[in-house]
């Protein structure tokens, strides 16, 4: 499916879902004439119209086989400059794992693991440098954030007391 067509459909779906949610916003005696749900409903309608126009334009272009062909080529060029979707999502999943592990194993270890995991994922040779850089990074950031800036980063329920 053409990317613009897909984008248009997704925008309409987002608009529909958002509109449905906006109708569930509670009324308030403090509310003005527009109400808390007024603007969201207007935005949902505008987004649906924009999505419809985008999808319609994509369909029309596909039919005429003109401007969108060029645009599709451009899209591919753009895509070439970006990491493939699975690779990019894989990168993000390390961040998700960090979020899950942070309260459990604490800031220093979670940060060190994140640095090591990303380095290996991005192609670092599996030598002693990886754990050394990871541990160094974890300790460095702990020193900056916890000691220097006074931020209460999680100690970790498994290692309570070790880095506090």
């Amino acid at each position: 499916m053409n990317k613009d067509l897909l984008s248009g459909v997704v925008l309409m779906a987002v608009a529909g879902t958002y509109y449905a949610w906006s109708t569930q916003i509670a009324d308030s005696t403090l509310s003005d004439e527009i109400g808390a749900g007024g603007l969201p409903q207007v935005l949902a309608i505008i987004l649906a119209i924009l999505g419809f126009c985008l999808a319609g334009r994509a369909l029309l272009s596909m039919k005429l086989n003109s401007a969108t062909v060029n645009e599709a080529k451009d899209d591919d060029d753009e895509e070439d400059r970006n990491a493939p979707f699975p690779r990019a999502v894989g990168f993000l999943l390390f961040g998700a794992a960090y979020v899950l592990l942070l309260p459990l194993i604490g800031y220093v270890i979670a940060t060190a693991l994140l640095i090591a995991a990303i380095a290996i994922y991005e192609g670092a040779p599996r030598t002693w440098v990886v754990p050394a850089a990871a541990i160094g990074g974890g300790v460095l950031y702990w020193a900056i954030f916890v000691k220097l800036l006074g931020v209460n980063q999680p100690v970790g329920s498994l290692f309570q007391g070790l880095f506090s």
Partner: protein
Amino acid sequence: MSTFADIIHLLTETPIFFVAIIGLTWGILGGALPGISASITMALVLPFTYTMDPAQAIALLACVYIGAEYGGSIPAILIRTPGTNSSAATVIDGYEMNRQGRAGEALGISLMSGVVGSLFGLAMLILLTEPLSWLALAFTPASYFGLGILGLSVISSMSSGSLLKGLAAAVVGLMISTVGTDPISGVTRFTFDIPDLLGGIEPVLVMVGLFALTELMSQSGSLNTLKLNASIRIKLPSLALMNKLKRSQFIGCILGLFEGLTPGGGGSIAAFMSYNEARRWSKTPQLFGKGSEEGVAAPETANNTVASTAMIPLLSFGIPSSNSTAVLLGGLLMHGLIPGPRLFEQSAQVIDSIYVGSFIAIIAQIGIGILILPACIWLVNRPRYYRSGFIFALILSGIYTLNNSTFDLGIALMLGLVGYLMRMTRFPVLPMILGVVLGHMVESSYRRSLVLSGGDLRIFLEDPISLGLLSLAFIFIFFSLVREFREARKAKLKEVHS
């Protein structure tokens, strides 16, 4: 600006000097890293400003911006890879000078031209911002609504990609801004009983997610082929050479001023325009592209001028004209500072800090620029796989700092994914960020106007400023549509002919 005494007080009583130096240093280091633009460098530091004094925080961001514009020229000259988009024009003659063994000279010209451009830009910022903001004192809620709509329309229509996509991104941004507690009635919206959403989604999360995380995701798996010569040192230009460069620097200043004031203009356009104009007016145009000093001076003066002049529409009217000024706007809002004329009325110290901090950063740039070059080269020469890990950890650590919440981390990661998908489908991210940033102002102004008028929509047409701004917004959208139709027709004709 308030009084001279206030500035002296700022210099002596608060650590503005240190803030400026830290911001400048961070900016140069960030700007020197290819792929890390000025806006990303600013977005990375944004969470750290959360607990700072507002005046210092905004000054820090402004100084990061100044530093990043210079930092971008380092890899542009040394490895033909612009550190920031706006240093792309510097590659042409800067790298050629490097090939001729004149890298130190090219870096010196870039540094000093940057200082000239930044000083000119700062002078214009000081001279123009406050008089322009007086205009905005006449603003009513309806005017503010018009201003918000104009800002969103201009950025949507000037952003890369189609107008439809720009507008859709802006609307999605406005939708994100509605999450949380309704500004008028206090009713919760789209919170799904999650306490972390009661305060809404902070613009800083959107900026870090869409700028920084998206960039890291997009770069994932790319090869690391950068290698800088560690022995290079900056050679400052002589007075005679500076005299020779004054014409191209003047061109850079003027075009930088013009582009800084133009929404969507930005440093890249200013730099390329200055390069072309400098060649046109040069006594030795044949040297351009072959290692011309003027070919480095003009674009570097222009993009550094823009770093200051782009703040004029931001501080005067609350309208950011580029990614970097959008981050600066996010910083202002994060500290509860209302952009536009109210900033001058209620928070004059913030304005003074920007001016003083910028001035210190510009002057210090000469010394710091020379001292920090080896560190920049060391940083750029680190393998990308370690750099990515460290930057990712820095981003996540910074976000956690905001509210000590892992929920914020989840939101930022999701927005990183959204940004990546937007990049893949060629949706511009700036309108979305502006939607989030301006959403509160647009909604509350709209609703307050209708409360004042008893629900009569004609208030937006009866208020002359609102009418003027909304008409301008309409004109921008109309001409963008016309441009798109023309381009589509041209593409069709081209295809028919081929």
